[in-house]
């Protein structure tokens, strides 16, 4: 209870209230969804495919048609689920151009690019084009790109979906480091329960475009009368 009260006092890195998104084909992806991500937390958004996770991210970052202020985009960095990187640019240029699209001066963007290449162990690949990088390196570059403009909130959309176990653990290591050393708020969407357990301080369950439960993993386990987060998730989805 005390923990929740403290979090309520904390400023929000993301505050969504009553967001609804209906696609052209009539599908309601978000149904009056409300979500508050406290600043400084590693926050997990758990839900099955089609629950609205990617739509929520798209609406927050400007990738889905939704009401949003341009200024707010400066505060958000996104690493989408699919790895799409500009193949005409090298890794260093790709990061620097991203920073410049967000208004950084050229020199500042280049310095930041070098800094992030080092953080993600990509310095040796600075001049390499993305299509010449391994899958793991491309994922790391995508996450680094989300950080270039020093956003307040970094959104990672299923960063380990479809990757092998070794690479998943490697990415977890980078994500922990990112949260600890860069001090950013992280919103991670995933449908891997163990990923949320391993990384997240707080978790929200999303189903059919609505948040159906939110709290620290221990709180959720207690709330749903379960022994593990996995059981709490299954119970929440069943209700």
């Amino acid at each position, binding site marked *: 209870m005390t923990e929740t009260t403290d979090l309520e006092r904390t400023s929000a890195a993301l505050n969504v209230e009553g967001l609804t998104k209906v*696609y*052209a084909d009539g599908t309601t992806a978000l149904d009056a969804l409300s979500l508050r991500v406290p600043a400084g937390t590693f926050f997990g958004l758990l839900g099955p495919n089609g629950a609205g996770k990617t739509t929520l991210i*798209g609406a927050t*970052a*400007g*990738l*889905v*048609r939704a009401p949003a202020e*341009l*200024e707010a*985009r*400066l505060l*958000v960095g*996104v690493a*989408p689920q*699919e790895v*799409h*990187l*500009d*193949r*005409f*640019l090298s890794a260093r240029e790709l990061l620097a*151009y*991203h920073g*410049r*699209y*967000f*208004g*950084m*001066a*050229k020199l500042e963007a280049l310095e930041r690019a070098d800094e992030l290449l080092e953080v993600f162990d990509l310095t040796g690949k600075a001049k390499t084009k993305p299509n010449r990088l391994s899958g793991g390196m491309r994922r790391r570059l995508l996450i680094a*790109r989300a950080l270039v403009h020093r956003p307040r909130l970094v959104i990672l959309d299923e960063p380990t979906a479809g990757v092998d176990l070794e690479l998943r653990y490697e990415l977890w290591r980078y994500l922990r480091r990112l949260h600890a050393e860069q001090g950013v708020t992280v919103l991670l969407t995933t449908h891997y329960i163990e990923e949320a357990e391993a990384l997240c301080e707080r978790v929200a369950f999303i189903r059919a475009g609505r948040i159906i439960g939110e709290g620290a993993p221990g709180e959720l386990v207690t709330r749903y009368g379960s022994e593990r987060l996995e059981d709490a998730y299954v119970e929440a989805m069943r209700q």
Partner: protein
Amino acid sequence: MSSAELRVRQRRGTAALAGRETRRVLSLWTQTILPPILTAVLFLAVFGGALGHRIHHVEGLPYLTFILPGLLVMTVAGQSFANSSTSLFQAKNEGYIEDVLTAPLRPGQLAFAYLAGGLTRGLLAAFAVALLALPFAGEGSQPALAVLALVLTGLVFSALGVITGIWADTFDQHAFVANIVITPLALVGGVFYSARTLAEPWATLTRLDPLYYLVDATRGGLTGFHQSSTWLALGVTATVAAAAILIAATLVRRGWRLKP
């Protein structure tokens, strides 16, 4: 953040994206600059060299001098359109447009940046063709007028390229506009003949082609010979360019075919 600071960031972002587009043109010069130069040189060689001595003069001008302004307009139109449409289509098709869509750029700024790449490619290619064709060109009565006509050509066709890049979901759709709209407009735009010498309905058909007026204005600037009101043509073209840019920006703002 103050609105002034946001505007500074947006201007920097626009300049960066325009720079990225220009850089793409230069780094792919064998695909973006060289082919139109070769095409134009072949046109000059075939129509000027091989056939030119049989045609001699058109409207009092040596044939090569007569066709050169039209070739420059064709080059700018084709290359400007190809660059904007291809670059945007690639970014959309390969998904990396999300990098730009998440940036805090205004729709008009985003459209302008893609347009800048098209304009750069069109004008660079035309400049190279003009340099090569300089020995055959006339003295040039109003070169500034010709440059203005070429810039307006670049703006109109770059904007059409942005619209096409947004609209096209497949390579076929993308190629359709280039093959069915741009190429015929270029070929019936009075590049190789004088509209006055044509019988009806061809003369009217030529005068209905918006490119005809741009070719005529450029020819007026480079040779002093023109058949229509140059300033009226430029005024109408400027209006068309403004409308096309507005449409492109509106499509970006609405996220049409860019965002679900």
